[in-house]
């Protein structure tokens, strides 16, 4: 590649947030270089397993356990990882990271064009001022420099573009968005909604808000209710970089996309106190390249953006780029996540469903709002889950062989309902990312090291979540079989975030309220790294809104000559 390439902006990473940055910046007229470390996956053309049946697959969709143990030891722990989707997750053996002695952290990653926009669960929830005000209220972490009103118009913009199916509920803790028609609750969920509300008016079981197009939209969709989204969807019926933001960015004629480009360094000029550009390694040839730009957006996924900042230390910034505060890498979070209760739901045997709804249900947070009614914790938890029927796989747990046994498996099985808790994770300085000084990756870059543990607050929240879930499912008519009150390892929720938090004070935060580095005016970090607290909602909608907002600000600064 030409050594003298120059752009208005460089975006690092093509996942959920990088796609948005590229779209917004190109649409504003900027010449943008989008760098993606992974391979190119072309919409429709490269969704290799989309139409495959289990019998078309060598291991029938379950995958080669032997291979997974050797090369996908972390990724294969995730339920969305199957033989159909394995090509959309990283090979752990080729992409190692380190964890501290007391840390269990499963880091689920997708290094490819589109990043985890291809594999995500599409749940989209707005944050409220209970969330943006959380740090200020209970003193954990540092206060957010923004509130809901700052982000509301950007949520509108993002939802209008990506399409989010959902039901308006008028809840202050989970503001309604601009929704496409919702998917329906099944019979059991509908009954559970009514019975739970009859007992606890403030607890609202509602359909998941999901970036699947329930109505046709500019040549996309509508969704066919297949629920195989993570294989890639040729209908373009869920939001991914490939289906949505990338075509929009390309349509401007202002985008240069380079895949297999792992950015290793962001270059800083102490004389101008500006970023001058980035350097990258071609993942295939290992050749080194560079480009310059007037501004840089980091969208490599929270931990990878922090990794890049740490690795971009220079003589002028020996502790990492934009790290005069010393907090870079600290206060990382992931929702504390566990199956709180699973119940058999008798009384609905006369009913089944048709089609595969690509979302479950949600019970938004209801604790620690106006009244501090959390036991041992000051924040919120919410539930996701749903009612489902068992099928032939239940036969594995049942005694029997022969004709009657076979016949017993031919009908949809008993109804069950599960509630999975996501609890707010308090930001702690000891939960942090650092560079491992002894081990390097295949490009010679120090590996990322993760130190992480949940604490008393998360454990208390999940204990209460288990008790609440058990009570709710019981009142809904269920017989609770089991539930857990301890979180899975960090990373289980796949909502890892923080490490370059936003804040008022340059002495205690990395970014200002525009997702812009306090130390370096032309550097923006608009993925999960910027989060100062975690709330308990799935975060990506908020990342997208923050990205669009930051892009507008960056463009305004550029046009005014301030950059």
């Amino acid at each position, binding site marked *: 590649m030409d050594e003298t390439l120059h752009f208005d902006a460089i975006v690092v990473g093509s996942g959920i947030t990088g796609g948005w940055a590229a779209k917004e910046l190109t649409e504003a007229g900027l010449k943008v270089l989008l760098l993606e470390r992974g391979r190119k996956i072309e919409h429709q053309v490269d969704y290799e397993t989309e139409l495959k049946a289990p019998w078309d697959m060598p291991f029938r969709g379950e995958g080669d356990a032997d291979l997974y143990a050797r090369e996908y030891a972390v990724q294969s722990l995730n339920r969305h990882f199957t033989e159909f989707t394995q090509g959309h997750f990283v090979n752990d053996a080729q992409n190692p990271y380190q964890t501290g002695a007391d840390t269990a952290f499963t880091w689920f990653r997708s290094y490819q064009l589109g990043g985890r926009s291809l594999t995500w669960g599409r749940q989209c929830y707005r944050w409220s001022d209970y969330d943006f005000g959380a740090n200020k209220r209970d003193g954990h972490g540092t206060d957010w420099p923004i509130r809901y009103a700052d982000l509301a118009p950007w949520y509108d913009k993002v939802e209008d573009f990506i399409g989010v199916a959902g039901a308006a509920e008028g809840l202050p803790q989970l503001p309604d968005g601009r929704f496409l028609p919702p998917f329906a609750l099944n019979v059991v969920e509908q009954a559970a909604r009514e019975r739970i509300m009859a007992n606890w008016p403030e607890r609202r079981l509602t359909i998941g808000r999901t970036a699947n197009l329930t109505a046709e939209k500019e040549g996309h969709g509508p969704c066919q209710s297949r629920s195989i989204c993570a294989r890639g969807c040729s209908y373009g019926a869920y939001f991914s970089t490939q289906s949505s933001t990338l075509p929009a960015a390309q349509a401007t004629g202002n985008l240069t996309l380079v895949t297999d480009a792992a950015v290793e360094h962001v270059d800083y000029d102490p004389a101008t106190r500006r970023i001058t550009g980035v350097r990258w390694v071609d993942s295939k040839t290992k050749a080194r390249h560079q480009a310059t730009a007037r501004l840089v957006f980091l969208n490599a996924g929270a931990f990878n953006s922090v990794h890049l900042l740490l690795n971009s230390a220079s003589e002028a910034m020996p502790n990492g780029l934009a790290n005069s505060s010393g907090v870079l890498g600290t206060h990382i979070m992931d929702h504390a996540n566990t199956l709180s209760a699973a119940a058999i739901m008798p009384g609905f045997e006369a009913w*089944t469903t048709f089609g595969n709804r690509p979302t479950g249900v949600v019970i938004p947070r209801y604790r620690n709002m106006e009244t501090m009614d959390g036991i041992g914790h000051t924040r919120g938890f919410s539930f996701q889950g749903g009612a489902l029927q068992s099928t032939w796989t239940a036969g594995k747990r049942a005694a029997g062989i022969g004709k009657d046994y076979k016949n017993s498996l031919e009908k949809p099985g008993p109804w069950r309902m599960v509630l999975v808790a996501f609890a707010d994770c308090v930001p702690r300085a000891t939960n942090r990312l650092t560079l491992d000084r002894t081990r390097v990756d295949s490009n010679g870059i120090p590996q990322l090291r993760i130190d992480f543990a949940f604490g008393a607050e998360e454990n208390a929240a999940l204990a209460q979540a288990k008790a609440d879930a058990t009570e709710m499912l019981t009142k809904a008519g269920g017989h609770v079989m089991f539930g857990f009150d301890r979180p899975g390892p960090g990373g289980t929720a796949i909502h890892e975030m923080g490490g370059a938090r936003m804040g008022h004070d340059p002495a205690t935060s990395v970014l200002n309220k525009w997702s812009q580095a306090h130390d370096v005016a032309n550097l923006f970090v608009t993925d999960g790294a910027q989060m100062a607290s975690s709330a308990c909602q799935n975060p990506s909608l908020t990342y997208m809104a923050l990205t669009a907002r930051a892009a507008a600000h960056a463009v305004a600064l550029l046009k005014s000559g301030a950059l």
Partner: protein
Amino acid sequence: MSGWNRRAFLGAATLVALQAAVAGGGAVLGKLDPRDAPSPRRRKLMREVAEHVIPTTGTPGAGVVGAGDFVLVALAHGLSGTRKPPAADPSFAPHLRPDGSLDHAAWLEVRLGAKWLALPPARRHEALAALDAAAYKGEPAAAPWRAIKGLILTGYYTSEIGGSKELNYELVPGRFDPKVPVTPETRAYSSDWTAVDFG
């Protein structure tokens, strides 16, 4: 067309699909590490065992669709945790691989006895039913059977016949209908991925 008619109609069309399915199993078997490559006798045993678990009824059974070969491939690759060291039981000792895992197929062959294949079908069925009952009652020495039976189910319900003739298969439902009455014709969908996952 009513459900039953449709099934009967599909039953007649299965023979063609069958050949393809079995050929598929064979192709993967051919790629196994020689140490895990099964003898013809073992393939026959697993086929018969599978057929006893899920027999041919209105639709072909698990042995007929090649679930036996799938189980052997699956065991060689450690599906369902079968490459993890088993709980200690003296009867497993002769069948442990160098890595400490249990060679489930070898164990089954010995557990059922050298003569099992030669027994009349009713006696075979009895012996297998006894093993199944012991395993599901929690007898440690019978425990490996649960993984084998589980893999037979996987081999069957993810085969074209098990998945789309015995059960229904619809890759593109086109809509979500939240409330459908269950009738005598109702069949589960093998393409209900959530049910398969959490079943």
